[in-house]
């Protein structure tokens, strides 16, 4: 049984390595609730597509996103005009480094619901929702988690977003990484919310030493170019 599964995953790796992808690469933005996935996805769209377009709403309430949303045809262009605007995305400290490979890459970006092993409707009541509403939201949130997991089957790469102020070594993070490794899907870890004083992107790098960890602030737009360069390099 075990060896059968091993062969299957080796075959999957081979198939991925040899086959031409059907259409554009689909990149999933994954992570625990409230990590900033929707904030990041919106920022990517604002920078490369349309500054007035949002894929979803970002709030401090966990499980705000309860359906995966795909934005097709996003061209990550490292020479984009908007990246040159100091007020938008370019981190003032980060120099434009020599590019590895081409500077343009077309992707579909998928904002996913936060992954969790538990959903307690009482948690939503603490945010002021009525009991009925809280229970409905909890139900939708469970469906959202299932949808995020199902989407993994159609994903060609993921950005795993973590909140740098929180302990990164959670079972859900470990499980996502383990699954991506088993499927041979490229993964970039983004250590978000580095604008906060108690942020520790180093703790994330220490927890997952075998992966590239890019510190960013999706909210403030800090260090975004580093992330885009890494995406352009890993997801082509």
């Amino acid at each position, binding site marked *: 049984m*075990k060896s059968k599964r*091993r062969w299957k995953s080796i075959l999957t790796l081979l198939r991925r390595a040899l086959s031409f992808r059907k259409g554009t690469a689909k990149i999933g933005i994954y992570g625990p609730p409230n990590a900033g996935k929707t904030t990041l996805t919106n920022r990517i769209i604002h920078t490369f597509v349309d500054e007035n377009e949002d894929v979803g709403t970002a709030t401090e309430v966990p499980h705000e996103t309860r359906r995966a949303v795909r934005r097709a045809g996003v061209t990550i262009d490292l020479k984009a005009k908007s990246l040159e605007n100091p007020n938008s995305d370019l981190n003032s400290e980060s120099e434009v480094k020599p590019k590895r490979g081409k500077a343009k890459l077309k992707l579909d970006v998928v904002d996913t619901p936060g*992954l*969790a*092993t*538990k*959903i*307690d*409707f009482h948690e939503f009541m603490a945010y002021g929702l009525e009991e009925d509403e809280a*229970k409905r939201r*909890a139900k939708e949130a*469970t*469906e959202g*988690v*299932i949808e995020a*997991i199902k989407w*993994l089957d159609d994903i060609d790469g993921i950005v795993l977003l973590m909140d740098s102020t929180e302990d990164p*070594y*959670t*079972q*859900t993070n*470990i*499980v*996502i*990484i*383990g*699954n991506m*490794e*088993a499927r041979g899907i490229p993964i970039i870890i983004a250590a978000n919310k580095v604008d906060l004083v108690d942020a520790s992107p180093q703790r994330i790098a220490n927890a997952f030493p075998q992966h590239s960890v890019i510190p960013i602030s999706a909210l403030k737009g800090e260090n975004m170019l580093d992330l885009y360069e890494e995406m352009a390099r890993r997801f082509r």
Partner: protein
Amino acid sequence: MEIKMNLISEDKINSMTSTEKLRFVLDGVKSGDIVVLEGGLTSEEQMKLIELTMTEVDDDFSGIEMSGYPSKKGFLNIRKKTRLTVIGPAKMMHTTKKDKDLISAIISAI
């Protein structure tokens, strides 16, 4: 105020199919037990367990708490050796500390 723990041997786990394993774990956890699996679950099985759990969350069952050691690379880095996994009801179990080789959890009766 009693808490039951089920410590499952690797032999017993290996005798079950993936579906049986997940059902066995979730049934135990839903009846309020702490389930410890020698040899543990693979990442794929853990993801499936999260999925299965989500289909069964309701007003009384809020989900699971799961902790495990990451798998070790085995022969030629191909074969992965999974290690211990512990799963309990989210209402009762709370992981306080976790790293590669140590898990601390607080377990309280509801």
